[in-house]
């Protein structure tokens, strides 16, 4: 789509991608109490305020846990590594992990958000999604 090869976000409401290949996961911040949520919500679960703004989350977090998925649905080629990353805003987000062998992964390691090709739409056009990669390798 663009010169950099960054196409359309696979989930535009949850992942913002820019032509330079950067991007952010999106969620909500409660203007009343400061709580953050992923994905975007209509009201705050902490205080029920509906005064929420959509914010872009940090791109670095800490790995909470992970697995290697070896059986999945046809849309996903196995094996792949799946993990939960805790971001400083106080949200935990699931994503695939790339750039490291499973045996080298440790809980608590720093991870960064990486904007990458991720599947195709119904017409076969490539989409852009995200993975997490260990901070050391970037």
């Amino acid at each position, binding site marked *: 789509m663009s010169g950099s090869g960054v196409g359309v976000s696979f989930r535009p409401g949850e992942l913002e991608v820019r032509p330079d290949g950067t991007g952010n996961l999106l969620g909500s911040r409660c203007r009343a109490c400061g709580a953050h*949520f*992923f*994905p975007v919500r209509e009201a705050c679960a902490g205080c029920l305020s509906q005064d929420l703004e959509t914010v872009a989350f940090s791109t670095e977090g800490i790995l909470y846990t992970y*697995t290697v*998925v070896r059986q999945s649905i046809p849309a996903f080629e196995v094996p792949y590594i799946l993990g939960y990353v805790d971001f400083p805003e106080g*949200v935990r987000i699931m994503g695939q992990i790339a750039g490291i062998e499973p045996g080298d992964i440790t809980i608590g390691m720093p991870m960064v958000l990486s904007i990458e090709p991720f599947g195709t739409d119904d017409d076969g056009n490539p989409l852009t999604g995200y993975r997490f990669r260990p901070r050391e390798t970037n």
Partner: protein
Amino acid sequence: MTDVHVVGVGMTRFGKHPDSDATDLGAAAFLEAIADAGIDPRLVESAYVGHVFQGMVTGQRILAQVGLAGLPLSNVENACSSGATAIREASLAIRAGENDVVVAIGTEHLTSKFAGALTPDPSDPEAAVGATMPGVYAMRARRYMEEFGMTREQLALIPVKNKSNAAQNPLAHFRKEITVEDVLESRAIADPLRLHDCSPVTDGSAAVILMSDTAMKKYGNGRAIRLAASTLRSGSVDVEPTSMTYEPLTWLTAKEAYDKAGIGPEDVDFAEVHDCFSIAEVLRVEGLGLFEQGSYPWAVERGEANIGGRLPINPSGGLIGKGHPLGGTGVAQVVELVRQLRGEAGVRQIEGARIGVAHCRGGKAVGIEGAACTVQILVR
């Protein structure tokens, strides 16, 4: 307010039923429950039917199959807690004074609907990145191992126990005992979980007939077991990341049930819990307050959760051994509780059992701890 009594129970064999469907299986379970209650089916005043992937009005198809038309009937979907939710709704109809005789049925013909790993609904952001239910539980297992030092071998003792119980249960999907080595050598599904750690894709149905005090006086058969509590909760939205090795949702659902029944976790004699995966049994029993957090794998090692142990868990074989036909599961748990409390569990009988707990937990949605959780307490 009236008490609620389980007067009749029925359950098909759990397993693969290629020549049957969710309607036939549900009808068979219903007819067995009616025969077990020893009542005229026309006494049934309303019906609640739990199922997940069986399509519209499966409950009406079942009752049409057995000649009962015209009843108020609700089809209930709450993922793996669908059948248990049907029982709760049925019990509420009685407690509210609306009905005196109600049937709850759970049914699923899963082998014709799906194969492989169950995933969250495709609309979910986690499904979009490749979440599978085994994957999510594998991540919880990994975290539990990290926090509490549980070994892979200890975790394997849970499927070994549950399949040993299932081997003694003529209605169970799996009838073969396995060893720790069998678990560790089975196919990897989502590290560290392997095939034997996972509940199977199962067809099956179960049904229970519930009665009020008034109906019991007229139609009771002397074998009723009291449903002392039936509670349901949905998971809270995470305001900040919470532990994935402890289940506040399970505890809150259980606490409400314990309070309603006037008991505490220390009074429970045995439990059927939602062991969709081996690690899930650990998280459930600790969430229910039956075992201290971080202690259950060692208790299993000591044999405390065996039939004949201090607190038997999943004497039926559980979801791992007996099978997991989503809608059927929660109702089948109550069938097991009733048979144990009546003293009709045969070689699996837990001697002197007076109080049993059934726990289901189903569904996955982004940002909430769990979707639907149920706890039922049955008292002899």
